[in-house]
């Protein structure tokens, strides 16, 4: 029984399980999804702590203990909100205050916990600051990249999963940086990550057209062809954004499924799926899941 055992793979598998559970006969199984979110949490904790320690070995400006402590923000209960809401949507629509076709609305994020992703900013040269269009990246503007504290995932970090190539990317405040290889690369992921960071800063430059739920819709994007996807499956550039799936939102859950235009009617008919309409404006979006 061979399996590509790495945290990224587990994350993508788990999210797909959650996704497929929505269409299972008999409704969402609370028990199974609860267990899947535990795996998701464990995998993400491992993945983030692995990457953080990699970053620290490279940059050495963080206190490991502080990092680990703040990683505790990845609490399972928060991540269950969307599942619970969706379950409520199915079973207790009357009871749930947050029932909104399965979508959990982002809570307001406390300003004091908004930190820029240190590793992302650290990779930017000062001149790149001009390209920071995201107004949420306030801490970058205030501080030099080297002084930035560790990321607080609840504030502004999203893990993005491409369902087609299984590429996992971390999106932080409008910046995204590829931190994954194709699943076949497995444990080399950490090395690839470091290597990409140094070599190709274009990953960290925000694409003004890149859609992030917090920052508004994105205009039409070019669809990547299959050839393009396969040829550089272990690299993400802005043109691949259209295929990205935002998987792990910051803070609470805001799960949605975005389908191609033709499936819209089917989606609207399905009350258990909440569609963020802003996503649909970009024809480049193929499949998108923002799980939690």
């Amino acid at each position: 029984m061979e399996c590509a055992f790495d945290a990224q793979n587990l994350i993508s598998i788990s999210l797909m399980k959650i996704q497929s559970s929505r269409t299972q006969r008999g409704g969402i199984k609370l028990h199974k999804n609860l267990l899947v979110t535990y795996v998701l949490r464990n995998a993400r904790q491992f993945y983030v702590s692995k990457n953080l320690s990699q970053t620290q070995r490279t940059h050495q400006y963080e206190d490991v203990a502080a990092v680990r402590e703040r990683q505790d923000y990845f609490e399972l209960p928060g991540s269950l909100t969307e599942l619970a809401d969706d379950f409520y949507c199915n079973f207790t629509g009357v009871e749930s205050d947050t029932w909104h076709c399965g979508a959990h609305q982002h809570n307001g994020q406390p300003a004091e916990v908004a930190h820029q992703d240190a590793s992302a900013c650290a990779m930017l040269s000062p001149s790149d600051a001009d390209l920071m269009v995201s107004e949420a990246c306030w801490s970058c503007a205030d501080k030099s990249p080297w002084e930035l504290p560790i990321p607080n995932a609840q504030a502004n970090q999203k893990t993005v999963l491409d369902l087609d190539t299984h590429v996992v990317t971390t999106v932080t405040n409008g910046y995204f940086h590829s931190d994954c290889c194709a699943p076949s690369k497995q444990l080399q992921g950490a090395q690839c990550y470091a290597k990409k960071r140094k070599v190709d800063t274009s990953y960290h430059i925000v694409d003004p057209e890149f859609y992030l739920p917090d920052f508004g819709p994105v205009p039409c994007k070019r669809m990547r062809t299959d050839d393009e996807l396969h040829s550089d499956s272990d690299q993400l550039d802005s043109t691949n954004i259209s295929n990205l799936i935002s998987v792990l939102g910051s803070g609470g859950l805001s799960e949605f499924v975005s389908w191609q235009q033709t499936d819209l009617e089917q989606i609207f008919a399905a009350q258990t799926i909440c569609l963020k309409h802003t996503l649909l404006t970009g024809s480049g979006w193929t499949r998108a899941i923002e799980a939690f």
Partner: protein
Amino acid sequence: MAGPGGDMQWCFSQVKGAIDDDVAEADIISTVEFNHTGELLATGDKGGRVVIFQQEIENKNLPQFRSEYNVYSTFQSHEPEFDYLKSLEIEEKINKIRWLPQKNAAQFLLSTNDKTIKLWKISERDKRPDGYNLKEEDGRYKDPNTITSLRVPVLIPMDLMVEASPRRVFANAHTYHINSISVNSDEETYLSADDLRINLWNLEITDRSFNIVDIKPANMEELTEVITAAEFHPHQCNTFVYSSSKGTIRLCDMRASALCDKQSKLFEEPEDPSNRSFFSEIISSISDVKFSHNGRYMMTRDYLSVKIWDLNMENRPVETYQVHEYLRSKLCSLYENDCIFDKFECCWNGNDSVVMTGSYNNFFRMFDRGQRRDVTLEASRENSKPMQVLKPRKVCAGGKRKKDEISVDSLDFNKKILHTAWHPQDNIIAVATTNNLYIFQDKVN
């Protein structure tokens, strides 16, 4: 278990179900249960059907007796439903069957799907009235003016007919999926448990139930565990237990308060930190809990092991049996193919000396508590000659595979035995593979 000195030797007795490998989903067996005398054996399937087998008992005292179970009754218990309000389909799969103790000539059982519990009466009819003079042959009533005398009809024998009729329907009490039902020893009440709540019913009253456990948090963001199984104590009508997805068991006393959210006892074994993995939470989730017949112990099944708990000791089980420890290194693959979510059941034998549970590759395991021995047996058509003795099987976890051993990588994870049942008095067991029901008996029996 094979060997001299009165040890059990299990022999094939019967197999029920379709032979072909192409399994219809509706035929997948989802529950198996003997009644209190063992004379009746009920199975439920994914298609909502209940099939009841009856044991032939005429030749029970003969030395070559082979208990034979034949179909007694078949009926459609649940149908698929659609909840229009929530746009949800409700599966007709029978999750559990529980027999009521027999009080008169009829038999009663409770069957449940995800949402609705039904009480079925199974009764025999072997006579019919004959000799009415009020009706014509075709059933039309005669003109009363033509009737000059009254004739009392006479009961005449007829071919045995077994009728199943729904006597009660207990509906609309569960928001989440029902996983357990358990009849109380008072024979008047029963409980039903879903993921977050347990309700207490009176068997006569269908329009109301009492909620006795509610673990749903005010904020669902704080949900960390669900109820996975629940059972009443076999003798104490005020006591029940429920297990959780976190590997804990709570024993509750209904005399303490109306809402039993605060347990009387909490049974939990600390996790071994050296075994910590991504899947620790999944494999510690309890899939079944069963009291021993004497009421002193309870048994729990999680993904890899069976644990026996003394009701007087909460901090750890008194016995732990590894069912298929060789799967611990395969958890990732089992997670990918969803096998890690399989819910295995477990059962006690009549005198609580042996416990049994299922595994993969159509293997099932028995653990003899007294003799500290265990055996792995297989339910397969290849070993299905009448009275053929089952040969113990062995799984090779690693290293050199001996002859007759099967390697872990050769196990068929689509062939799983989730449901097993042990006759309450005799050494007769019912083992359900995907769509077949195997009946084995002890050779000595």
